[in-house]
């Protein structure tokens, strides 16, 4: 099980780096989907064989929503709204990668110092979660395209979830489903808003830097 767990964590880290270094929206969305599926498999890495029914359901729902529904929604938005598929960065891709590597180092350093209670199943756990959270926040602020902000939000949530799933902080099935529902509706509302933004102000083309009429 540890092999599977560490493999999945490495996958999550690699998808983060992929997103930091790529300039194509398609790559972002696919990497995000892969990360979501990897996250769902984390549910199956617990000790003691096959998990309970409720957890299996949760994992399946996570997989379908993050690996299937979200990418479909986002690709549809790109197609129908005619968004440019190149991402314009505020921070260059090489710089982003370097910052990412530095963040990974920092996350590993902090992860080694956090006094986690109970059995720690992998030393990679906490660093991976923290690095994913950082990647999400970075994508939100460092890319101009509004779709990458949605993706950044998703990556951030994935990071938070990695903590939740992997540390077995079983918050209960209902709450986990509620959280998932919230994220789903959240992304749905965001995508609808993006459609409207594109229809309302044609020239914006999802460039979030043009959303700056409101200020003091």
């Amino acid at each position, binding site marked *: 099980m540890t092999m599977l767990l560490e493999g999945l964590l490495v996958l999550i880290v690699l998808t983060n780096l992929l997103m930091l270094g790529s300039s194509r929206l398609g790559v972002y969305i696919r990497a995000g989907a892969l990360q979501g599926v990897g996250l769902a498999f984390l549910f199956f890495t617990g000790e003691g064989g096959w998990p309970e029914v409720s957890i299996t359901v949760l994992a399946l729902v996570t997989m379908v929503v993050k690996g299937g529904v979200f990418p479909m929604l986002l690709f549809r938005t790109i197609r129908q709204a005619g968004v440019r598929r190149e991402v314009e960065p505020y921070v260059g891709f090489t710089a982003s990668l370097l910052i990412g590597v530095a963040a990974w180092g920092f996350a590993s350093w902090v992860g080694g110092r956090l006094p986690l209670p109970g059995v720690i199943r992998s030393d990679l756990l906490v660093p991976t979660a923290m690095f994913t959270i950082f990647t999400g926040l970075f994508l*939100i602020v460092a890319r101009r395209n509004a779709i990458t*902000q949605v993706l950044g939000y998703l990556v951030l949530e994935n990071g938070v979830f990695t903590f939740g799933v992997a*540390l077995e902080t079983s*918050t209960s099935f209902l709450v986990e489903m509620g*959280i998932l*529902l919230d994220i789903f*509706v959240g992304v749905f*509302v965001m995508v609808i808003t993006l459609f409207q933004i594109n229809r309302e102000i044609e020239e914006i083309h999802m460039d979030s830097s043009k959303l700056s009429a409101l200020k*003091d």
Partner: protein
Amino acid sequence: MLNWLLLLPMVVGLLAFAVRFKPVLQGMLLFTAVAHTTLTVRLWGGEGGQEAVAWHGWLQLDAAGTLFLSITSLLFLAAAVYGVSYLRGECHRYPAGHQAVFVGCLLIFLGTMTLVCLAQHLGLLWVAIEATTLASAPLIYFHRSSRSLEATWKYLVICSVGIALALLGTFFLSIAAHRLEGTLILGDLVGQAGLLLTPWLKVAFVLFVVGYGTKVGLAPLHTWLPDAHSEAPAVVSCLLSGALLNNAFLGILRLRQICGAADLGAFGHGTLIGLGLLSMATAAIFIVGQTDYKRLLAYSSVEHMGVLAVGFGLGGWGTIGALFHAVNHSLGKGLLFLTAGNILEGYHTKAIAEVRGVRRLLPGTGLMWLFGFLALTGAPPSGAFLSELLVAAAAFKAGQNLVGVVFLALLTVVFVGMARPFLEMTGGEPPAAVAERRPQESVLRVLPISLLWLGVFTLGWYVPPELRDLLTRAAALLGG
């Protein structure tokens, strides 16, 4: 009873999406608001002196919940009465489907805020607070302009990201409760707080403050607030400012309750006081010289959330003062946002410089604009005066003289900064172009405002014993 309180707005809200007949929609809005308030009032006595419990203790109406729920319910009633007239008047040209989304989201918004007040499971609390964001985002976009679109986008992204950090805090709290099998039920956490792992509890508290603080609008995380509040329709601004901000604060208070029980002592108090004063200062900077009256009110909300944070940070009388101030701010700010809606409809502009002579053109509205300003900024006799005095007194009593002095100085700056625009708008001659249109104000648009004002004015010299009792119990619960 709690189930009804929760299900009623949710179910009626969902039904509303399917209705295409405007009078029915307005009836649904009004009916739900009245029923919700009636249920809330009946819960005040408690069912035979017991706190109402449902869902195996996941939902419970404790003193703090009762207070925030009552504020929400009352304000929603006022907003609904106003809203019916609003939908009939200015927005009758909008298609029915448009209004259906508005009423539906408004009712679901009420349902999610009710859930925030009732939730005793901190995971459920997170779900509820995030749901308030999602239910209210379409409301901000009601006018379908590019400006409201921008405000909606910022609101969605900034609040969702902020609240994601609160989710991390919730997981950390679960780690802190490792010896309690990771429970997230408030009662268990408070009851056995001695077993919590303090380092994780502290990190959780910081993440709660940052996460939910974004939603509360504490500086420097407040940037979505002026945009959303100023672009939303009056009814929505009133609820966002008067009800939602308080409820988000409840998220922070729940964790403070746990920290208090875990004997962390003064931990986090400094953070709250610091953020509170920073919010007040930030608001003061943007209030002085503000050119848009709805943004002015929005920044005033940032200021008042700062007052709450300072009060809660000081503890003791400060907590009671802050809770009381939440009541006063909600009534006062609700009334001013609704009044601003009347002015916007009459003058078709949000620029302070283009609004003159409200008192002459819209007599009831003008009077309430002035009275509401006095009540909100804490001119005696008003409830806000008393509650701000309580917070200031708590600062001096705790020996934090510097905090007290800065607090009072900032209140004064805000008062002066707000006085000029309010007086200029109320007095003078209305612009000729506006006067020719002869805007009218209907009774339904002035009555709820006047009643809100009456409430905040009365609280200045008479606090009903029931409310006093509730405030004391809530303060004791939150670990004053």
